[in-house]
């Protein structure tokens, strides 16, 4: 299989073709079974976190270390020249690109990773989250987890619950799964946090059906994947939040009619949308999903930085 990801910027899941997604999933599975510690020996990678994101940063940095590369960078955007002295993001990236072999960037503004790629002098850029826009490696680890648990990425019934309006993980995952046939989506959210129309239109354009539902219990017996997200308190007024919060909390008793293959995923952090009693059911897969982030990130880093990857 030709490695078309070599030297490519990983900015948006929409930039990746289906064969490229499959290449990453294949590589992730190989790395999970057979760690290859020296794949990126002598490479230096910058980890530029302009906003806090402990899990994503540690996951990326673990992936870098496991591949034998070195890492430089920062995890507090307020404590660097850009924050303190007013340097532009473009200048910051332009300089860092002359030090390293790849740049991982997390930034609160949408489009920042694409901008970084324009100023990185052909040094590959990995988007570790740009505002509410994209988080492609989260989607890759989600796809890897779904394929690992269901043995396929098509013909699946997927429920997405919570903040579907601002949740970039559900947007990207929906767009990625829309590349596969016969998937069906169930969207469960407060009215104020519905899936945006442009995502729904993308599904229709790909001939994929979706339906809005009122609660989890009405569809629990039909679904293979239950993707929970946090209803964000700051997005709703206090009454709306109180109603939404109580309506979309998953308890183990709600899983009694679940299919045996059901897996519950969550991008984390979990606040209170999944009761802790669910953790002890065979359906809870969110911590294993987070662990898969290492393999998916190792896979994408090595595919972008090494041409002959197998």
């Amino acid at each position, binding site marked *: 299989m030709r490695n078309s990801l070599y030297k490519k910027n990983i900015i*948006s899941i*929409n930039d990746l073709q289906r064969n490229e997604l499959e290449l990453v999933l294949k590589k992730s599975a190989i790395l999970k079974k057979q760690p290859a510690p020296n794949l990126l020996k002598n490479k230096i990678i910058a980890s530029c976190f302009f906003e806090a994101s402990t899990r994503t940063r540690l996951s990326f940095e673990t992936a870098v270390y496991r591949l034998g590369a070195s890492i430089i960078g920062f995890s507090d955007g307020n404590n660097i020249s850009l924050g303190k002295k007013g340097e*532009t*993001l*473009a200048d910051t990236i332009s300089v860092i690109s002359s030090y390293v072999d790849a740049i991982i960037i997390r*930034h*609160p*503004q*949408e*489009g*920042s990773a*694409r*901008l970084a790629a*324009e100023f990185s002098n052909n040094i590959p850029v990995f988007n570790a989250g*740009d*505002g*509410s*826009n*994209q988080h492609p490696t989260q989607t890759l680890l989600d796809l890897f987890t779904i394929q690992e648990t269901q043995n396929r990425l098509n013909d699946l019934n997927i429920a997405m619950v919570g903040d579907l309006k601002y949740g970039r993980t559900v947007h990207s995952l929906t767009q990625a799964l829309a590349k596969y046939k016969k998937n069906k989506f169930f969207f469960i959210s407060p009215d104020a946090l519905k899936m945006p129309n*442009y995502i729904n*239109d993308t599904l*229709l*354009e790909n001939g994929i059906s979706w339906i809005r539902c009122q609660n989890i219990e009405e569809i629990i017996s039909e679904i293979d994947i239950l993707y929970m997200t946090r209803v964000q308190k700051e997005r709703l007024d206090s009454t709306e939040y109180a109603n939404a919060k109580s309506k979309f909390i998953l308890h183990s008793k709600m899983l009694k009619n679940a299919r045996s293959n059901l897996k519950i995923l969550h991008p984390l952090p979990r606040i209170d949308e999944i009761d802790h009693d669910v953790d002890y059911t065979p359906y809870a897969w969110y911590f294993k999903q987070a662990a898969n982030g290492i393999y998916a990130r190792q896979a994408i880093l090595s595919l972008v930085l090494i041409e002959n990857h197998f």
Partner: protein
Amino acid sequence: MQINKLQVEAIKCGSVIDHIPSQIGFKLLSLFRFTETEKRITIGLNLPSQKLGKKDIIKIENTFLSADQINQLAIYSPCATVNYIDQYNLVGKIFPTLPKKIDRILICPNSNCISHNNCITSSFLFIKKLDNNMNLKCQYCEKEFSKNIVLS
């Protein structure tokens, strides 16, 4: 037609953007940065038009619009025509077609988009929807907006 000729004088050489919907002419002047040129520009607003009822017209001397600029006109004035004039003669007539991409002239409605506060220019792709409407997708923040939201 006689009234038009009297109100907006002919140019010897350059471009005439005709059949601009009324109220749009002035907007085009600033959007396409025609106000920043030192070329002589004449503009007619709310002129009578058989086709549109009322129209605006812009004449720019010694300037020939690029293909990109002409196609960008289609966003605001789909019926506009661009006439090239040389020695007072019409030497070309172009009907703008909607471009696939539009750079520089629009502002992303998403206030958290990086295109607002850095040394870059905006870039939008036209996306045709199932209902035949057109959306504009920001190349940076990847958000899609209906044409009216971006143009307002």
